[in-house]
């Protein structure tokens, strides 16, 4: 490997950044960009959470003044629902799980010095920041922000007169376009990096699973977003130019949008889910000191689920008015897709068998992910079966279902990753006392917020309504809405605990050793936080698979992936 050293400088990219501008604003170092994504995602999470607070208050005590927000009412409620969904999916989940985790981990776990295109990487981030700004600005324009649901179905979204929202919805579309561009470029960067920049010895069969998941997520996004961009252009034309792609009175077809949206939308939920699943799959072996069970199977499950996700989209449309004969084929593909995910869950449980399980914070979040995700996955079966979806579609059962899956990804998977990699990212340990408090209160309050929503959904409460008391069949169950909202106060309070912990630990936390968890993957062989260029003079060389824990006959219960001199230095 004589050619590694000469190219070092060429690959390293710009030298260590100095000065405020180069360090924070025009940063090209993947680790700084990862932190930027994390911060942006957390800020937008506060916004999205604030909107959900206003919604939940309105749902529990309709048409009363929401403390710290003001009066909600039906018009504002639609704005809240729409922007909460949009922000959470596109400006929280993706920035944190792909943007931050992907950027931080891909180079570190594959032994590269940075992403393949560092400047493009910075561009991706700033595009995302711009997109976030556009969403926020859309609240300020005359007519207010978008209010046609996060799915933006036309005709409602295609003409200002239907919602009373003019510029807000156009800006909303624009924000999506910018976000898509950001993650499209980001995805190209991820894939190129993974394909071309793996360290010597790091074959595909030795990649940590989260890298597989990030790569699959990037591919799903790249291949699914095109049709939705096409749809967004068409919708924008309908709104601005006066075409009629989606307007029946001008010869258009509203259903076309739904096909384009969900062709993207279903892969998109896996784009969010897979990186979270990946983080959890990294954490399980470390805290049970066992290899992950069935590495190859899990990789195949990921790929198969990804491929299947392109042929399930119409399960969101069983009762949409499409040809009802299409329902059964899509019901079958949908239900098939539960098999690879079941496999992943079983493999995770099997990984615990005969383990030596330590309930440290990252592991707690990872275990909770597994439980919550299983719950959300099982309720999905009700919705994947066309006849039972006739009843449940559009009710709070759906709201409960997708929050169990999405929140298990974003909150449980996200925190699992943050707690696990925080020492590497910030060079300090997160406080464990506050961490414990944060975990247990989140776990309990999350379930109290969302589990009862299954019931009220089954009782017939439809989604996206501002006032449940308008429905005679729901009014007797209103206590559920109250319980859910009160529990949300607990959920919010526990996130405050996290924020305090997060910022205080960055300043005052115990300095983190290089490898606090005695983990095997490459990122733990660099100092915490890793220096610019990650690896000093020589690139790491990989000698074995990623999860060699408790290997019989070894002197320690873990064998690092990295072989050679540098590995020895990395001892905790």
């Amino acid at each position, binding site marked *: 490997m004589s050619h590694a050293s000469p190219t070092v400088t060429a690959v390293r990219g710009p030298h260590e950044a100095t000065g405020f501008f180069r360090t924070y604003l025009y940063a090209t170092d993947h680790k700084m960009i990862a932190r930027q994504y994390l911060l942006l995602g957390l800020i937008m999470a506060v916004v999205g959470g604030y909107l959900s607070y206003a919604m939940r208050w309105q749902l529990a005590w309709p048409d009363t003044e929401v403390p710290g927000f003001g009066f909600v009412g039906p018009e504002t409620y639609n704005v809240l629902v729409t922007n909460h969904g949009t922000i959470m999916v596109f400006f929280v989940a993706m920035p944190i799980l792909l943007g931050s985790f992907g950027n931080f981990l891909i180079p570190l776990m594959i032994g590269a010095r940075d992403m393949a295109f560092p400047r493009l990487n910075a561009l991706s981030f700033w595009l995302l920041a711009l997109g976030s700004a556009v969403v926020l600005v859309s609240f300020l324009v005359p007519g207010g922000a978008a209010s046609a649901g996060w799915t933006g179905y036309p005709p409602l979204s295609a003409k200002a007169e239907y919602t009373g929202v003019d510029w807000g919805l156009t800006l909303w579309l624009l924000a999506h376009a910018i976000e898509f561009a950001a993650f499209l470029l980001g995805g190209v960067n991820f894939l190129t990096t993974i394909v*071309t920049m793996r360290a010597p010895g790091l074959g595909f069969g030795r990649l940590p699973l989260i890298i597989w998941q990030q790569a699959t997520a990037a591919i799903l996004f790249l291949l699914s977003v095109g049709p939705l*961009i096409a*749809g967004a252009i068409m919708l924008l034309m309908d709104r601005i130019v006066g075409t009629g792609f989606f307007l029946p009175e001008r010869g258009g077809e509203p259903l076309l949008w739904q096909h384009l949206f969900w062709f993207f939308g279903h892969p998109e939920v896996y784009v969010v889910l897979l990186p979270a699943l990946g983080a959890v799959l990294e954490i399980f072996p470390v805290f049970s000191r066992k290899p992950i069970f069935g590495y190859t199977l899990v990789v195949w499950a990921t790929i198969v689920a990804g491929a299947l996700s392109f042929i399930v989209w119409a399960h969101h449309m069983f009762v949409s008015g499409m040809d009802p004969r299409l329902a059964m084929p899509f019901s079958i593909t949908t239900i098939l897709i539960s098999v690879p995910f079941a496999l992943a869950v079983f493999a995770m449980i099997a990984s615990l068998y005969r383990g030596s399980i330590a309930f440290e914070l990252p592991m707690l979040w990872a275990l909770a992910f597994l439980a919550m995700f299983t719950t959300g996955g099982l309720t999905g079966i009700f919705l994947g079966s066309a006849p039972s979806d006739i009843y449940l579609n559009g009710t709070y059962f759906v709201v409960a279902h997708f929050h169990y899956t999405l929140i298990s990804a974003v909150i449980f998977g996200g925190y699992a990753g943050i707690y696990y990699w925080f020492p590497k990212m910030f060079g300090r340990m997160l406080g464990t006392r506050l961490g414990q408090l944060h975990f247990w209160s989140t776990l309990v309050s999350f379930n109290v917020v969302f589990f009862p929503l299954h019931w009220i959904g089954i009782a017939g409460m439809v989604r996206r309504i501002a006032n449940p008391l308008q429905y005679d069949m729901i009014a007797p169950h209103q206590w559920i809405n109250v319980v859910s909202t009160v529990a949300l106060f607990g959920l919010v309070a526990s996130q405050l605990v996290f924020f305090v912990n997060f910022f205080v630990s960055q300043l005052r936390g115990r300095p983190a050793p290089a490898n606090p968890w005695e983990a095997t993957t490459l990122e733990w062989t660099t100092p915490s936080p890793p220096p610019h260029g990650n690896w000093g003079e020589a690139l790491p060389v990989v000698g074995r698979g990623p999860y060699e824990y408790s290997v019989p006959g070894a002197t320690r219960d873990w064998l690092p992936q990295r072989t050679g001199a540098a590995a020895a230095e990395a001892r905790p």
Partner: protein
Amino acid sequence: MSAATPTYAGTAGAAARGKVGIWWFLASEVMLFGGLISSFVISRLGGSAHVEHDHLNVTVAAINTFILLSSSYTMVEAYAAAERGDRRGMRVFLGLTVLGGLAFLGIKAYEYTGEITHGFTPWAGTFWSFYYTMTGLHALHVLIGVIANATLCLGARLGLERPYRVELAGLYWHFVDIVWIFLFPLVYLS
């Protein structure tokens, strides 16, 4: 490090990275145009977008197709020149490609003008909506290609050329060409 260590692309240069990157990018572009074109085809099968090629200028479009195809040829020559280290050739052929792209855009603009003055605006019916959206998006891609090629051409003048970039721009340019090869028969002929 031992010589037996398998070598991975990890040390591959910018050229290899650029190529992998552009392929992934083009894959997503395929899906973008694929989504739009499928929507058009579905609308046509559903009967809502009758092709009105009586009102399109097929001859002019055919000439335009020829121009775009030729510019793909000059792009190939530009890359060949870059590979040979023939800077002058590279500049000349890049310049010709840029001219081809500009000519294409000019002719397209001429077509649009004719159609619009006859009342066939983007809101004149579903066919026209698709027509302007698809060819417009394609024209935007041509414009981006023209800018990229012009930048490379000027860069070469200043001695900044990196031959692999010509190859990347070429991949993109051929893609834009191929999209047109789908659009032309679909819009003008069928």
